[in-house]
């Protein structure tokens, strides 16, 4: 069992396989904890269960995925939630771009890096950043769980805005009204079948909507997609 510091929480788990161990390395705590905030135990049974389902996952990837899933489910108990998004930090603030798989959220944030410079626009998690409310402030965190590629930083930043992307021939952006923003956020997170947990998740969604503007953007692959999203999100205000 090892202790990691993820999204401001002490998390204990044992990585049986290299994939999870390597990806977790930069989150390893200096001291092991006997009283962690979150304790994760992914059994061999669960790993082989996931492995036997029709997917293209390897044994090692199954352990990594299930550990991430447990972490994000527990995160709901700590004023937090997963958002399926690519999170880029620029000028000290995080911009989160969310979308169903294959829409191009990573493409969009990599365009930010090309436009602003990869040293100035840092991707702290390319697929599954953690969001938490800490002392009233909404923060995005890098975590070891970033999907297919190991693109994440052990870092956090206050969130400037959240944007849901869809593909469009023309770049166009607007703020989402509250009910649509609630649907969009919940559709790109992990839900729980437990009512108490679900109520906590909904409280976090409410806290998010009180603090940051939520957008919907139709985007293409031209560089002006970057200026369109940046300028709108920079000056967006909570509805």
């Amino acid at each position, binding site marked *: 069992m090892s202790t990691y510091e993820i999204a401001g929480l002490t998390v204990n788990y044992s990585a049986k396989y290299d994939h999870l161990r390597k990806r977790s390395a930069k989150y390893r705590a200096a001291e092991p904890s006997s009283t962690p905030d979150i304790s994760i135990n992914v059994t061999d049974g669960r790993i082989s269960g996931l492995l036997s389902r029709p997917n293209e996952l390897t044994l090692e990837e199954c352990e990594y995925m299930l550990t991430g899933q447990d972490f994000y489910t527990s995160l709901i108990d700590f004023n937090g939630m997963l958002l399926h998004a690519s999170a880029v930090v620029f000028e000290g603030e995080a911009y989160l771009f969310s979308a169903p798989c294959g829409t191009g959220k990573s493409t969009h944030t990599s365009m930010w890096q090309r436009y602003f410079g990869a040293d100035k626009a840092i991707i702290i998690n390319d697929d599954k950043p953690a969001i938490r409310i800490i002392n009233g402030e909404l923060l995005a965190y890098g975590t070891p769980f970033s999907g297919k590629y190991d693109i994440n930083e052990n870092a956090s930043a206050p969130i400037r805005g959240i944007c849901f992307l869809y593909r469009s021939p023309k770049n166009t952006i607007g703020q989402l009204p*509250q009910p649509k923003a609630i649907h969009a956020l919940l559709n790109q997170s992990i839900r729980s079948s437990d009512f108490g947990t*679900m109520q906590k998740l909904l409280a976090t969604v409410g806290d998010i909507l009180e603090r940051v503007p939520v957008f919907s953007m139709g985007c293409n692959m031209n560089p002006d997609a970057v200026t369109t999203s940046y300028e709108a999100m920079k000056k967006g205000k909570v509805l």
Partner: protein
Amino acid sequence: MKIKEGYKLCKVRDSSIVVAVGDATMDFNGLVTLNQTGELIWSMLEYGAPDGEIISAIVKEYSVDEATAKSDFDEFTASLKGAGFIE
């Protein structure tokens, strides 16, 4: 008419949404936003109010005539039935 077990009305700021919990998540994994009338009807169905009482409440709350209230009630409960939320 009764709301099936596992469907819950929740508030997020000033929006009312219905989510599935427990076994109901196997049948329904989406979520539904209710308007004000929907919220009133849902919460009365939740405690088992008879149709007539709910329709009177709509008449009072929204100052509409009984026929309008009844058609709002019928339309809403039909959509709940269609979605499998009531039995």
